[in-house]
């Protein structure tokens, strides 16, 4: 026997209810400090050569923050683009684009993370 509130809490029609909403907010909150740090770093790297940039990325704190930023960015944009597509498109195009956004965001996110890790592990 469950209460009405117990049934509703956290459960939508597909049993994942507020997850999308919540994940979008969590990634947004994570991105606030990460983006302030990123923009400040980019400005301080203006005009820097390859060596300087690679040394910056190879610093463990930088690589960790960059991987976190990439993860949050691609998760957040995947959720955001999903809503945009669902709002404006219907039928087959919607499905194709949703699948495309999912695959593309995962693949590009992986590329960015591997690039950071490759530099971090020194090659």
């Amino acid at each position, binding site marked *: 026997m469950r209460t009405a509130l117990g049934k509703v809490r956290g459960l939508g029609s597909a049993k994942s209810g507020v997850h999308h909403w919540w994940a979008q907010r969590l990634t947004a909150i994570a991105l606030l400090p990460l983006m302030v740090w990123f923009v400040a770093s980019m400005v301080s790297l203006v005009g820097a050569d390859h060596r300087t940039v690679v040394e910056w990325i190879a610093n463990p704190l930088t690589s960790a923050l960059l991987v976190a930023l990439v993860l949050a960015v691609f998760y957040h*944009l995947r959720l955001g683009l999903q809503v945009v597509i669902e709002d404006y498109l219907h039928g087959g195009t919607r499905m194709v684009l949703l699948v495309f956004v999912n695959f593309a965001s995962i693949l590009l996110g992986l590329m*960015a993370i591997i690039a950071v890790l490759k530099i971090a592990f020194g090659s």
Partner: protein
Amino acid sequence: MARRDRPLSPHLQVYRFQLHMAMSIFHRATGVALSVGALFLTWWLVAAATGPVYFEQVQGYIATPVGRLFLFGFSFALFYHMLNGIRHLNWDMGRGYAKEKFKRSGQMVIILAVVLTLAVWAWAYRALGLM
């Protein structure tokens, strides 16, 4: 089935133009633009991992007027989306819905986004010794 005739979600035609609706759709537009920005971020990181020759080439593209215009656009989109995002998070907590507060926070977002974008670019040009 009848469901095919249902109206599409944002019923744009029933709204009178006002700041709030323009800011709302601009939040989406900047979000989509920033998704393209994420592509550029990936490209830049991959270039750095590839090697000095390719990296300098990519840096060269970014330094062109078109490249800088893109970067300027991304920076403004980022500040707008971040500031308006904070506004959204505040609403999510059930705050800031009073008409006056709503209007003022909207104006603040626009002003701050412009100021921060210009400040960051002034800072960058100073670092380059061009200002």
